[in-house]
């Protein structure tokens, strides 16, 4: 199956304001789709609809494959350390991958045992990104994933996305205007 996500005539309203309507999105294996748009244009809303977290007000949405989600909030509990967080979700998903290797890859070896309330924003973001590597899921839904990352973090995430896409996965990411990223398609909201 080549197509991973197929959405037709999606619409979303916030209060009395229409964020978007008649929006068609399709995602195939090997594609990177970027969502661009000003603040409040509905990028996050659209991603949440694609993740099944939010119901579209109109339209049809089909997802053929499981997804990884990285939102504004990282999903870390205040008592969790990066190691505990990754181990927790590896356990939940029944993944047998090597947590130490993922921590090393994300440059999280040093703060691996620091509770998340003491981590920097970038370290929390890296921990969340670590979840992408726990289990092989074809669809990655990323909401401004470069936020809070340093230059080295940008390169690392770009490498991860490229590796994922060339292995047959696909990515939909909401991005700020200035971040450069090679993409199959861009959608402006």
């Amino acid at each position, binding site marked *: 199956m080549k197509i991973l996500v197929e959405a037709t005539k999606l619409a979303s309203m916030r209060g009395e304001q229409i964020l978007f309507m008649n929006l068609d999105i399709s995602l195939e294996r090997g594609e990177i789709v970027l969502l661009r748009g000003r603040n409040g244009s509905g990028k996050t809303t659209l991603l949440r609809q694609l*993740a099944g*977290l939010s119901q579209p007000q109109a339209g049809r949405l089909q997802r053929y494959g499981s997804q990884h*989600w990285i939102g504004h909030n990282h999903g870390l*509990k*205040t008592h969790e350390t990066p190691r505990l967080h990754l181990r927790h979700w590896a*356990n*939940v998903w029944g993944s047998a991958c090597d947590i130490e290797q993922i921590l090393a890859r994300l440059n999280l070896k040093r703060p691996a045992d620091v509770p998340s309330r003491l981590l920097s924003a970038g370290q929390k973001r890296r921990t969340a990104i670590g979840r992408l590597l726990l289990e092989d899921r074809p669809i990655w839904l990323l909401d401004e994933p470069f936020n809070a990352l340093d230059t080295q973090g940008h390169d690392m995430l770009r490498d991860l996305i490229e590796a994922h896409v060339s292995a047959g996965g696909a990515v939909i990411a909401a991005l700020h205007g200035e971040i450069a990223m090679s993409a199959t398609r861009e959608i402006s909201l």
Partner: protein
Amino acid sequence: MKSAPIHYAFRQALVEAWAGGAGLLLPVGFFGGTVVLVPFSLGDSSALLATAGPGVLWLALALASLVTLERVFQADLQDGALDLWIQEDNLISLIAAVKILAHFIVSGLPLVLLTPLIGLMFQIPAEATVTAMAVYGFGGVSFFLWGGVAAALSASIARAGLLIAVIALPFYLPTMIFGSLAILEDGAGTSDLFLLASTLFALGVAPPFMGAALRLAAD
């Protein structure tokens, strides 16, 4: 159905309840405070304390559930963990239920275990203590489950404590009444069965309510 998500949600909630709510200290302080203050408010007649004591503790358990539940789902909503749980193949109802059970174990179960000690202070007879422990154990689950529904409904509201109380208290009433009657009857009547029934009802009905409310909160 996969059991790993539920198992690990339970473990995470146990650790979180332990780490976040000062662990055992909050309920111990709550019940300890009740024990210390009740003789001052009701007087020191030992007959009165022995009669009123179990009921007063029963009330303290109900109120303690309201105090501790305010943050249980609100934290998940704010830190983004709720988004991850909702994406776990329709397991959110069960995950919410085991989170509530974890909170009951950390905040409610200590009362059950402390009852013999508190009973000594109130001079409650030994048989009545056993009945009271059973009532607190089974009835407490029901309090926490209904409190959990209220907490899920108000997860997206800041300072929701009052709202949780207003939503949950009507649902507490059957359990409250049957529990008090069971303590008074001391095994002689059928109220203990009704208490059990009210807890079973909560176990069946509250999880889907929590699941639906949490989906709504995340939307």
